[in-house]
């Protein structure tokens, strides 16, 4: 330092560029991969592990794989590669279950309409999202029911739900579970914080008892006990029962997630809303829940992802979900071979991963969007 350094500035200090080590690819490598000895060792170890595992996996899935074959003979001879021909051959079963082949366009239309509406609904800048809400929550369920189940008046043969299966049933279960369990969870969370002891007690008993038993138990109970509680004429459809079980079970978990969000809202927000004359419903709907739900997006999506994968369990009460159709296909003697099960499970894993990863990325993007400039 210069001996003549002045304590009082006579001119403003210039703004200097950051040192080179702070920027660029070299700096990124140093900061993220080799920031300390332990981090460097970890980086090298993981790189070695990837080099050891990935080439074999990629070769198995690509160059060594059988891409097309009329039956399992070729797959049986190529045991170091996946048998994608099996997937291609069985894809219709995986997608539709036992739904009659000449009626499968109805499933396609329902899926496409649903995908379009969901995209419209989830796209942040999309126009007229209020219309999308109306279409998705009111029109779409009716349309889907008429299309999938059928209506003699419209000339669509009735397809019994016992024939429904595959990917579309898995998606249907997940969608119904997500759409119905969130509002129910919010109500239960509010109920658990209610000042009225009866409402609080009912909510607590519901949440604790549903959370306290395995999902499979809930499914069995929905399957056998729902018909007992309802009059015979209303005996719920065999597919509806696991749907109800899924919703009831997921709602208990979501309720606790939402309650966590409600608890981090400062008391001042309630008081600010009350002082303006807002009623309880307005306060909750306009001020408290929008903030509370934003805070717990990661937890809610975590639950949705869990719910999506748990739909594989509904096969236990006889519903033909996607994973069940895959496992059923293993039994086909034409395709029997040592690589069939690996291939089938890899395909199923890929399917679940794509959807769950998509949900996860969407929630991250949402969080960032909602967080921008809004934190107090």
């Amino acid at each position, binding site marked *: 330092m210069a001996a003549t350094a002045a304590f009082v500035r006579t001119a403003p200090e210039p703004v200097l560029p950051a040192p080179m080590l702070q920027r660029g690819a070299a700096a990124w490598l140093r900061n993220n991969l080799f920031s300390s000895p332990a981090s460097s060792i970890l980086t090298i170890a993981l790189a070695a592990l990837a080099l050891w595992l990935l080439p074999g996996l990629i070769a198995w899935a690509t160059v060594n794989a059988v891409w097309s074959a009329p039956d399992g003979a070729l797959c049986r001879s190529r045991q170091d590669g996946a048998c994608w021909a099996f997937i291609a051959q069985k894809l219709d079963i995986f997608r539709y279950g036992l739904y009659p082949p000449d009626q499968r366009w109805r499933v396609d239309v329902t899926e496409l309409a649903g995908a379009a509406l969901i995209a419209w609904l989830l796209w942040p800048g999309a126009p007229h999202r209020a219309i999308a809400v109306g279409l998705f929550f009111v029109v779409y369920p009716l349309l889907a029911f008429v299309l999938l189940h059928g209506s003699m008046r419209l000339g669509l043969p009735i397809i019994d739900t016992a024939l429904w299966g595959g990917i579309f049933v898995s998606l249907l279960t997940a969608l119904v579970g997500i759409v119905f369990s969130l509002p129910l969870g919010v109500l239960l969370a509010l109920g658990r914080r209610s000042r009225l002891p009866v409402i609080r007690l009912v909510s607590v008993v519901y949440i604790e008892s549903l959370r306290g038993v395995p999902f499979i138990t809930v499914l069995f109970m929905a399957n056998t006990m729902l018909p007992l509680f309802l009059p015979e004429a209303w005996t719920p459809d065999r597919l509806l029962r696991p749907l109800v079980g899924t919703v009831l079970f997921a709602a208990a978990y979501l309720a606790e997630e939402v309650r966590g969000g409600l608890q981090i809202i*400062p008391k*001042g*927000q309630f*008081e*600010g*809303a*009350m*002082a*303006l*004359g*807002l*009623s309880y419903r*307005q306060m909750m709907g*306009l*001020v408290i829940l*929008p*903030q509370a739900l*934003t805070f717990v997006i990661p937890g809610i999506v975590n639950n949705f992802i869990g719910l999506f994968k748990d739909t594989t369990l509904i096969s236990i009460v006889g519903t033909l979900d996607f994973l069940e159709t895959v496992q059923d296909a293993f039994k086909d003697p034409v395709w029997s071979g040592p690589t069939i099960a690996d291939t089938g499970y890899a395909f199923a894993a890929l399917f679940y991963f794509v959807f769950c990863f998509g949900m996860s990325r969407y929630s991250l993007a949402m969080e960032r969007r*909602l967080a921008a*400039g*809004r*934190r*107090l």
Partner: protein
Amino acid sequence: MDARTAPAGPAMAIELIGVHKWYGAFHALRNVSLGVARGERIVVCGPSGSGKSTLIRCVNHLEQHQRGRIIVDGVELTNDVKRIEEVRREVGMVFQSFNLFPHLTVLENCTLAPIWVRRTPKAAAEDVATQLLARVKILDQANKYPGQLSGGQQQRAAIARALCMNPKIMLFDEPTSSLDPEMVKEVLETMVSLAEEGMTMMVVTHEMGFARQVADRVAFMDNGEIVEINAPVEFFAHPQHERTKLFLSQILH
């Protein structure tokens, strides 16, 4: 039963008659009686824990009193939710911690209650909010979120939000206590201009300069009771009570 117990055009905006309040076993308000006339400005001061915030929060029923009567704008506060909401519509409140809604813009903060509580059409509510935001000099911040504003700007936004409901009475609960010193002035100026227009105001504050300039009466509270109440000139020049003298000697230099 008629909710409006006072005659038409009651002289009293706020009437507290023998009000008691306990937190558990702690006696927070002890037999407090106070009348605030229409257009009157009352400043309540006192050491922390003296019950002044509890008192002002009882006026719009954010705290519930357990004995005595509280009549606001002719409506007696009971546990009847309808009456409480009726009173809150006419009584604006400004908090120490602002309590703006962080997920809404400043403008949306201002129009929320008029639209949902008063059923004002959105465009009309936005007109009123725009005027009031201009009045508190933060119109340029209207489309920002509260988190992007300084403390002083947030508090002025909170005042505008309360005024958007066109209240008859304004309550201020230590409005400048959580502000940086350089922002206190801008908030106090807003409050002075409000007082000059004849708004009925009840203000809990330690800003004795504001009390001197604006208040019609200054009340001193200690241990949950109003110890002394007087016009500001008398109150500051000749405090009657030992506790008042002690308090004033501690906060005035």
